[in-house]
């Protein structure tokens, strides 16, 4: 699907098919969750990142269903570049009303970056001033998990992590996404 077509689709769904919720409510709720995790894990930010990613993963596993239902796309993306377009222009648009910029593709088209000009999760957020959070905490890490979970449900194993964050004082907020492999249809694993 062409980039402009994806944009139009995202816009259209956002306008007509999405129940909106007050953004301050989302921001405050997310902030409170992160703050609670920081407290629970005694400012072990590496662990907090991990927990956020895990929470996101579990959201992603289910959110893809809603994405497919709302976007009504019956067709698979024909390649990873198209997947990136759909993530940025439809996925992020309909759930967060933002469209991150896709950039920095590797030549094998397996890795790209999403650059967030705006990040609603980070509105009026300041990281703890303890000299460590700025280096260790990825505040919006839940988004990485969401992508990982959602893409796994449509047969793509990806790895996603932030490499910069304006909250840390960086110039941009950038997430790196790598396609590890397409998951073949296989029998579900045994319950363990």
């Amino acid at each position, binding site marked *: 699907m062409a980039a402009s077509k994806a944009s139009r689709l995202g816009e259209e769904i956002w306008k007509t098919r999405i129940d909106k*919720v*007050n953004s*301050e*409510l989302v921001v*405050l*709720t997310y*902030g*409170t969750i992160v*703050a*609670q995790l920081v407290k629970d894990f005694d400012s072990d930010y590496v662990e907090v990142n991990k927990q956020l990613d895990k929470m996101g993963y579990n959201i992603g596993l289910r959110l893809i269903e809603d994405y497919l239902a709302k976007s009504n796309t019956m067709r698979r993306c024909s390649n990873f570049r198209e997947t990136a377009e759909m993530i940025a222009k439809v996925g992020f648009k309909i759930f967060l009303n933002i469209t991150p910029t896709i950039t920095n593709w590797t030549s094998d088209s397996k890795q790209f970056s999403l650059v967030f000009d705006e990040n609603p999760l980070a509105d009026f957020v300041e990281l703890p001033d303890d000299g460590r959070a700025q280096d260790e905490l990825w505040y919006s890490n839940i988004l990485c998990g969401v992508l990982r979970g959602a893409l796994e449900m449509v047969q793509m194993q990806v790895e996603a992590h932030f490499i910069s964050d304006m909250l840390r004082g960086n110039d941009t907020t950038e997430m790196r996404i790598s396609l590890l492999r397409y998951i073949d249809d296989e029998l579900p694993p045994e319950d363990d």
Partner: protein
Amino acid sequence: LAEGGTSGLESGEATAAAAARKMDEDEERDAVFFRLEGLGYRVGQGLVERFSRDRPRFTDTLDVIKFLCKDLWMLVFRKQVDNLKTNHRGVYVLTDNAFRPFSRMSTETGGQAVVRAQPFLWFPCGIVRGALAAMGINASVQADSTELPGAVFQIKTIPAKAA
């Protein structure tokens, strides 16, 4: 809804173990309640801080409760509270006949929908208590539901102790 619920019948020997397990379940339930309610409290405080800024000063407790039922409810649940009752002695009962978080919940028949929906009231309880606290009213807040998607919140204000 979250997984939960145990079967009713227990064999004799298992009773003690079951009692211990029940205890654990109760403790866990309380811990989850405490956690969710606390998270909500912080959110409620923040919301009021942002959204009561440009309005005139509250005249009395009822004025605050009305703000809660109209403005805050609208903000959080995109509708207003359907009914407000008070005994004029510090107790307020808010009835929402179509509580948003419940609007898409259902279980199979006999699935104890109401019981399993209960945990979803804890975070909102916290929001209400936090919002009230930010407006200078100490209160305890309880909520329950007799039939989905309705929910009833009971607010008991705690009068400031006379010096």
